[in-house]
């Protein structure tokens, strides 16, 4: 209301402020377009939360419910009755934490080598990394499965969930970029002092790269937390499933609590949303790094 009167006021005194009136008009148009789009975009997340607080007979009733109810904890216990979701969350958290630590270490070591040393075969290594970005994962899926499940007999173990996804091309490119932007004098000074290369990496380069490591860690944690296809194939035994896989087994069953499924979806999603809000800058940096040089 107030913005409309402001707009008419400023257009009446057009001679003095036509610039600001057109700015105001554009600003109003911008918000009129973007607000409904934002509400549509938030709607599925909002409904996920609402469903998770509704009893099943409420979800499957003809009335339109858009506000939260009080059955979240009942839904959690319904979910726990349908599948051991709390146990699966435990596996997911442990796997994601271990994976993130190892993957950050591996990708930053590789990124460091590519950024800071001249060596035979460097071009080939870079070409491999770029090449795999656009290669469909489907091409390696079947042999990976045969190898891990049949040859190594590692199905339904943590190793199976953690080790094969450790190859990560965007992370290496990101860390290579981060290390090559650092001033080389710093490392040379340490070398003159006789500091060993691995100590320079560990105690000089890594601390300097802390913001980039944070961005990378968040992206890798999220990738592991949400990973579905590989864990679905390799860890399908009930006690070895990750949380998304356990939840996925319930979707499509006939006698299952949908309030429970939604409570599970909320438990998978809301912690990540909180992390996203708190660390949005790192998040955005990590994703944008894929494309921006």
């Amino acid at each position, binding site marked *: 209301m107030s913005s409309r009167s402001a707009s008419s006021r400023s257009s009446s005194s057009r001679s003095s402020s036509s610039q600001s009136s057109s700015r105001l008009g554009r600003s109003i148009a911008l918000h009129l377009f973007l607000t409904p*789009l934002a509400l549509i975009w938030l709607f599925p997340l909002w409904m996920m939360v609402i469903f998770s607080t509704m009893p099943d007979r409420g979800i499957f009733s003809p009335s339109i419910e858009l506000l939260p109810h009080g059955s979240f904890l009942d839904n959690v216990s319904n979910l726990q009755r349908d599948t051991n979701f709390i146990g699966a969350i435990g596996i997911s958290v442990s796997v994601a934490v271990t994976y993130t630590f190892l993957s950050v270490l591996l990708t930053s070591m590789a990124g460091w080598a590519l950024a800071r040393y001249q060596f035979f075969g460097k071009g080939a290594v870079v070409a491999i990394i770029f090449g795999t970005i656009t290669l469909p994962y489907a091409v390696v899926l*079947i*042999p990976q499965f045969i190898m891990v499940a049949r040859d190594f007999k590692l199905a339904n173990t943590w190793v199976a969930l953690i080790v094969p996804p450790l190859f990560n091309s965007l992370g290496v490119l990101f860390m290579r970029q981060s290390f090559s932007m650092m001033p080389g004098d710093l490392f040379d000074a340490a070398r003159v002092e006789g500091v060993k290369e691995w100590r320079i990496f560990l105690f000089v380069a890594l601390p300097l790269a802390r913001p980039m490591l944070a961005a990378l860690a968040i992206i890798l944690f999220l990738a592991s937390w949400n990973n579905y296809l590989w864990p679905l194939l390799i860890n399908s035994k009930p006690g070895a499933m990750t949380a998304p896989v356990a939840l*996925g087994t319930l979707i499509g069953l006939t006698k299952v609590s949908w309030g429970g499924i939604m409570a599970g979806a909320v438990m998978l999603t809301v912690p990540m949303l909180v992390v*996203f809000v708190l660390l949005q800058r790192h*998040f*955005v940096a990590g994703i944008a790094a*894929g494309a921006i040089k």
Partner: protein
Amino acid sequence: MRYQNATAYRFLAPYLLIFSIFWLWPIISSFLISFQATRTVPWRFAPTFNWGRLIGDPAFFNALKNTLLILVIQVPVMITLAIVMAVLLNSPLLKARGLFRFAFFAPVVVGEVAYSAVFRLMFNLDYGIINKLLNSIGLPRIDWFSNVTPAMAVIMIAVTWRWAGYNAIILLAGLQSIPQDVYEAATLDRVSKLKQFFYITLPLLKPIIVFCAVLSIIGTMQLFTEPFLITERGGPGGGTETLGLLLYRQGFRSLNFGYASAIAYTMAGLAIAISLVQLWLTREPK
């Protein structure tokens, strides 16, 4: 700069080891497996067994058709939407920027299973909120999952919702790397905002738009979870079955690794073709 082979490869060793075992060998191996008959033990070399079956398999062409249909509709819609989001989020006129960023970027952290479950429930025939809302404004409800066209629409809506913000993040970073003085000069010359968008923003953003498009095409090409969970294993009657789902069914339900590998290499061939188009589109002008 002098060569430091030993030091460099010591840092690269663990990464390259993982690469060799879990990527390099599988890439070769699945190519070899695609030329073997794997339904009988021991596997035997039969070069036309899987590839011959592939070119005569209606299920394969159905999955290929569905995948390409989703590609040509969903990816352009999503990229356009992502460009619009990025440009508008970048506007200096925008208030409550944080809220808008949250709204569009939040789906990026939502897992495939969680959002598939929500979309399945939202589009439920009798009790889904979408049909209830359609009813409440006097429109007939839609049987989303029993007919192919609306089922495909749900898949495309879901994927677009999940990934538009992801692309917008990349595009927004690209927009912010365009120097401001270009726009200031254009504004002084009284070039309209719309013209600035088409003659400055889009050309400068082109390499990033192409990058987003290629990543989206390759991601959508491997679409699996959405038709697996939202439309119940590619239903109705295979109407939303994708190449990813067919590969899963052949490889891990029927344990027909040879045929599944042939499907995987078909996807790789498509991906390589698309990457070549990308290289051609973003080539340096001579």
